[in-house]
């Protein structure tokens, strides 16, 4: 994949936040497995890195296999290891689930008591639908749920839920 294709994709997202950069550049050679990486404008988690050389005496290049952290789609990228990649700032925060609205929007509260009501149930993929169903059924059973909200490049989504330690006992 050419380098040009790799850059210049995040223009669309830049406007979403108040001026703060959504990504920062890092040398491809230092990106590790399980690290984050932007491929084709999507924030991804690297599931496999392999290095090789172009011909025996060429320079090293990295082959990434990565998974979109929101959609679960798989992406691949090949880039010289000395080139810079975009690394997304990924933020993970836990909220206690207060309510599941009829419109599918959730009411959440962080650890300092601030509420957040602009986030819906995960949707779009099978896994997301499964997770949404799980949240709904657990909530309906009266379990106290803690959800993890993943935020990167101006998007956010619930990506995991667990039953709060307090409610299990």
């Amino acid at each position: 994949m050419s380098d040009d294709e790799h850059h210049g994709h995040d223009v669309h997202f830049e406007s979403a936040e108040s001026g703060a950069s959504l990504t920062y550049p890092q040398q491809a050679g230092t990106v590790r497995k399980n690290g984050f990486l932007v491929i084709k404008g999507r924030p991804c988690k690297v599931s496999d890195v392999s290095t090789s050389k172009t011909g025996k005496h060429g320079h090293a290049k990295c082959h990434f296999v990565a998974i979109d952290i929101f959609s679960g789609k798989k992406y691949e990228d090949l880039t010289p290891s000395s080139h810079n990649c975009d690394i997304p700032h990924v933020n993970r925060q836990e909220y206690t689930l207060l309510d599941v609205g009829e419109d599918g929007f959730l009411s959440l509260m962080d650890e300092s008591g601030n509420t957040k009501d602009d986030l819906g149930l995960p949707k779009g993929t099978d896994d997301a639908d499964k997770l949404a169903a799980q949240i709904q059924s657990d909530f309906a059973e009266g379990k106290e749920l803690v959800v993890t909200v993943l935020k990167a490049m101006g998007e956010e989504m619930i990506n995991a839920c667990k039953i709060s330690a307090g409610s299990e006992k």
Partner: protein
Amino acid sequence: MDHIQQVLERACDQFAVPGFQKQAEAVLLEFRQSHQPFAACQHVLQHSTHQAAQFQAALTLREAGLREWEGLGPGGQQGLRQFLLSTLLRDSTPHGAIVQGALSGAFAVLLKRGWLAGNVAQQQAWLGDVEAIAASSQHLTIRSASIWLLEAVITEFNPATASAMGMPWASHEQCRSSLQATHLRRVALLVMTQARTSVVAALQGQDGGICRACMALLSVILSWDFRDPAHGLRMSPAVRPSDDLLQVKPGEAWRELLLAPDAFDWLTHLITTLGHPEHQQQLSQADSQCLASQSRNLLVRLCAVAGDIFPPKDGKQRASLGLQCQTAKDTYLARVLHPVLLCALPSQQSVQQASCGNQDPLLDACRAVAAAAPVHRANGFHRALPPGCGPQLPSGVLSSIAELTQQVLGTGGMGDDGGWASTATDLLLEAWSALLLEATMCGSPRDADLPEGVAEAAAGVFHALVLAALAEAGKGLDEDESEGEADAAAANPEANVSSVEEDRLAQAAAIGRTALEPCAGLLAGLIQQRLEALPRLAQSGQDASQAQEELCWLACMGAALVADAGDGETPLVPNAVADCCQAAAAAGRPDTIQALCQLLLQLLTLPLNPAASPCASPRLMEAAVAAAARLCGTYLMPSSELLGSLGHFFGSEGSGQQVVEGLLSSCQALLLRPEYTAEGALHKLVSGRLLRMLALCQPTATLLLHSPAYQGLAGGFAEQRHELMSLGESVLKRLAEALCLVAAAIPDFAESHGYTTSLLQSSAGAVERVSQLPAAEAGKADVTGQATILIQIWRGATQGMTAYSQTAMWALTQHLLQPLLSLQHIYRNHPRATCLLLKLAAGLVEAHISYLGPEDARQLFAWVLAALQQYARDGRRAHAGTVHSLNARLQEEANAEAEAELRALLRLLFNVTQRDLADFGTPAGQPGIDVAQMVFVGLDIVVPLMTTELLKFPALSVAYFQLLAHMLEVYPERVLTLPGHQATMLMNTLRFGLSSMSQDVLQASLEATAALARFHQLHTPPSSSTSAGARAALSTLLWALMQRMLEEPSGGDLVELAADAALPLILFCPEAFQTLGHDLVSSRNDKATESQLTASLMALSSSSTAISSNMDRPSRKAFRLSFSDFILVARSILQMR
């Protein structure tokens, strides 16, 4: 019975049809596992003409015979063997070779089973009968069948080829030694006589296969694991492990049999006659090839004969035996090596034949040479077959082998395609390095002078090898370096060549060192040519990859030739090099070795030469760095002054300082030049190998400190300059380690303290700064990246700490403890950072724990405790099992991350226990350090997090159970005094471990159980308050242990470990044992098996009650035997349907 036969035959037919395969397999399995299938099997074998059905019946007989051995009773056992024997040794046998083989195998297994049951005299009589038939039967087929039967018996009795019978190792060993003492030699004698008498008929195809059978049997005998009956274990140290595997050491008793002048004249006759074209007409081509290959095989085994069978070198003993030591050994070698070698001579012809597909004679000759080489060495070969000893060996055996090697190398032998040429090359190179070992080994006595002409032969071989390797290097240059290579490099980044290549290089070096001067000169010339060509190629813009690849190989070869790998030990100067340098100095001629070394180091300066730098590819530089590291490890600042101009070149009085300076400039260029940006593998080699090697060695480390280039590098690191910090975390970790190691070379303590402090102060400050950032800021990806780099730098620095720099490091570390706790909290949602922090904690504890005084140790322990509690409080991984994640793949990776964290935690806890080794008690009046409490608190945090998902990672469960075993062995008294839930939890995990299928986990759990049970048996009085609780807990362990041992297969060693655990358990909880026995017996509804089980249980319990309560060594040994008997019997009963 006919019905069963029909069913079986039909199932066998259906088995070949894919659609019915499953169904047929079920029928066959059902038949094999059926109760008492003996009559049916015998019926099938007698009446069926269906080969596959006969084969199934034979296998079933074997399996059922073993399984139901005890139930058969003496009559049944005898009948079964009688049947097998009469079926096998019939005049006109209707069975094919495969059925015959299966029946022979069944007979052998049952014979061994009977042997183990203690009825040795009777079994020996059986074997004697077979021997008699083999010696004197009038019918050729019967004689041949009986020889094949003997072959099966000996194969079965050899522990290396024995079938698994669920017996402990000791039983197999008992059979081995008993057969070796009574039968083996007799059988060999018998079969050699048979072979001699049948060889003429065999050449006409009229021996009924006796000769082939004899040779097969002899080969099996020569693969026997001979051991001195007086010693259970071998005492003689082997030079290399592979020597021992190849060699067969029958001992003195076999001297007369194998070394007699006419012992193998029949074999020589056979192989030479088969080689003549006119004789081949009397036999079919297949028969003749089969005979020839079998006889060559036997000769290869004979070439491997070694040890006491040859008369000793000691003059007195030799005289008393009336033998000439060397003569006997040499004559023997000539006798066995000559015929097989002739099959591959003249070499040109045999290589041609091999290229046409007939490679076996050539390969067998190579095998024979490789087998004989470690036994006889070059001198033995030379004495046995000197120049002029025969028409085919005009210039002696060594030159012929050299010629053969050159021919094989010339046909692409250095490739790694696994074809015949590369196999032959491997064998021949191994043979050469063994032949020349005495002359080339470091530190070996120098009296082992090589025979005349060997040096020339070796130089010829080396020359051919270099040419072949260079030709090979030219292939596949434009292909990308494959993933496999990259993976191998990732597993051990400091190794730039694979271990297979390394082996070949070492063998080539052994050959080259025999004629060091010409070989080093050859390499130097080749390197020089290519070094001169590179700037030309770079200027003209031509592709230089051929020259680059050749230089890579030449660099590796050159370094291997003049310096040993060392592998963690201080490498010595090879004798050959020292001799060569001295000779050059004495004769006043230029030193070839020095020239080669200089050229190798010159490779590393390529990036500094503007004309050649475009050709200094990362791969070439990797090879150059590795070569330079190897050279410097051996020669830089040598302590001995014996090396003439080479010593001057590398020495501190000579140009050593310049060499170090040059190396450092190259290192700097390789780390910082933009053309090597992100070449991680190269950077790791530079920092992890070359710099580390320079830092480890005191004299070079001292030079480093005075080198401006080094000061620049260390200064840049101390100031955390951007160009260094962008090298990547794993490179920086290695760099930090190397830089910290240098502190040990500073003689003034205060100065050394200052060096370490200035090196690490700014990174300590950076850690503190990051730890004070607001969470949102610190959580940003770039800051997280910085933080992981800092943690890695501290991990590397901790690894590079020495006793000398510990005080300085601890002073810095103390200020770091609180910030690290903050980082742990900040990065609680960043798996990698958390994992690295835990690894750093484990590293800090490991490094400092044995140096710290009580006060500091308490501080460190308080910190560890705080880190553990923080980990628990942050809820990392809490309820990992109940998390529902968005993506299954991501969930899998989350599991892998969790496993890495827990493993780091366990490592931390394990390192904490190491305080026990350093702690000699605390002064009175001060609170002591409770290691056990700390570890149990840690386990309380770790165990709930270990979900079943995570226990699928073998490394994690092994680490946990090993820690548990350690704790239960050292602190058995503490476990049951732990709070209720915690003790229960540990006992539950132990029970889980006892049911594990992993050998390592099971072993650790058995050791833990044994330690705990032994403690309670010896120290808990039956009436004490803890007794009841302990008894309840241990009873469940006894159940779990018995269940595992009876239901699942396990090796002999584990049965012994289980016995050690079972003994104290049974003694401490006799009631539980009784209940268990009762349950076991009542689970069977069949009277016969019930009484058998009762009997073996009674035997076990009586042997345990007979044991004195202090469980001394002899009584434990006795119990082991009765326990393994019990397991064997009870398991076979429980497996019955």
